[in-house]
């Protein structure tokens, strides 16, 4: 297993070497880049909004319920909600969710192109297929993902605000004061940096699994699953490393 993992990593590095080359035609590259930003990024906005709103609201409710003590100031609910969202949810957890949506999308699309000989057709024209297909996906997703991260932070905080506004669990003043207290701007940058790294992992690992599919539609499905599982594990490992590097 160790040997095959090292071999796969080697193949992944060689694949990345193929991907990160000068595009055949910049005009076509930018056209594809816009398309991929729309497909992988903009199309993920509804999912990010719904999940962040709900999780923000749930975190706020959990915090209110679990911090009932005269020793804990009432604004701590907002503060804790903000810290959870900024530090972990909007970057790591959201990336894990996007690994499912975007990762499987990329792996199945490229895998289908492989088994239906579309990649061979591109290669035979003398075009670097890895560069042509994969580079716009990686660049597009990495470029757009900070927008999703910041949007998730905002929507999560908004979800908490809805709880304070429409229930009697916590007052709006306390919640707003909490989310403004002891604010450390670096946490936003920390979240964004993590998300960019995770976006690269999601798009490149999924592309790798899709590009090297062999067989038919069954293998495309397997590749899609493997891409999501592998990128999720790598994201979790990278999360530990990045947290140690960026917050210590």
């Amino acid at each position: 297993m160790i040997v095959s993992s090292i071999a796969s990593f080697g193949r992944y590095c060689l694949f990345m070497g193929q991907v990160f080359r000068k595009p055949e035609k910049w005009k076509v590259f930018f056209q594809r880049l816009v398309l991929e930003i729309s497909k992988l990024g903009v199309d993920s906005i509804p999912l990010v909004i719904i999940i962040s709103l709900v999780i923000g609201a749930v975190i706020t409710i959990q915090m209110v319920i679990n911090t009932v003590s005269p020793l804990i100031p009432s604004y701590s609910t907002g503060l804790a909600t903000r810290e959870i969202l900024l530090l972990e949810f909007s970057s790591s957890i959201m990336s894990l969710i996007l690994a499912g949506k975007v990762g499987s999308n990329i792996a199945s699309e490229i895998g289908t192109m492989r088994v239906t000989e579309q990649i061979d057709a591109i290669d035979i024209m003398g075009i670097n297929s890895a560069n042509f297909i994969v580079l716009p996906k990686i660049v597009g997703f990495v470029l757009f993902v900070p927008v999703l991260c910041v949007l998730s932070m905002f929507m999560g905080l908004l979800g908490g605000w809805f709880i304070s506004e429409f229930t009697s669990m916590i007052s709006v003043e306390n919640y707003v004061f909490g989310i403004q207290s002891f604010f450390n701007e670096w946490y936003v940058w920390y979240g964004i940096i993590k998300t960019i790294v995770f976006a690269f992992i999601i798009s490149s690992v999924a592309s790798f699994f899709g590009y090297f599919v062999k067989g038919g539609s069954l293998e495309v499905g397997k590749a899609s699953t493997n891409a999501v599982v592998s990128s999720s594990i790598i994201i979790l490992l990278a999360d530990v490393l990045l947290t140690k590097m960026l917050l210590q």
Partner: protein
Amino acid sequence: MIEAKNISKWFDGQRILYDISATFDTGKTNLIIGQSGSGKTVFMKCLIGLLTPEEGSILYDGRKFREMSEQQKRALRTEIGVLFQGSALFDNETVLGNVMFPLKMFSPMSHEEQLERAHFCIKRVGLTNADDKYPSEISGGMQKRVAIARAIALNPKYLFCDEPNSGLDPRTSILIDELLSDITHEYGITTIINTHDMNSVLGIGEKIVFINKGHCDWIGTDKTIFKSKSQSLNDFVFASKLFQEVKKFLEREYEAEEDV
């Protein structure tokens, strides 16, 4: 002209091709025939450069493929059109987008000229009112036509077709064969068609290379194929009842000729 000299290919220690040598003539429809699993697709992929043979050499009009630099290979690829078995059309592009693709990537033409060329190619393969349709919205026969239009968009010198009739009804198969033959003669292309369809063999086989279990067993034409003494070729050609009847008929004809 494309020449293959002593091509040998192994996969995981198993030999697939054994010293295959053949010449494919310019301006003719050259057919590679053989049973499924005989190695004809591997041979064609070696000719195109999608697979690298362990032994032997391939010459495109005297230019040795193996000795070419990456840049020369890329230049050569713009002279090659390929029709894949499953058409290999880009799902997210329309018919027009698919035909425009090679033009966009390689042609120095203006956008208007590219459009004009793409429309010409689409019209040449007999498609009308299909520009804005996606591959999933058109029939298998139409997909083949689009793939042919895309393959000829850059005026290729060499056209490779991998089982162009697979999955098509007999009538559409004949139309596709005729189209490939017409295009070959019209533009003087070196066309190589990989098939096991005997209708294609008889209809457009100006030169035929028969591959059996990785060996080149016979080379001839549609005129000489019925007179061949090769047992493996006869087993392949006369496998169906229809062609067995044809064989009996031809033998009677030959006997009558000899009596006269």
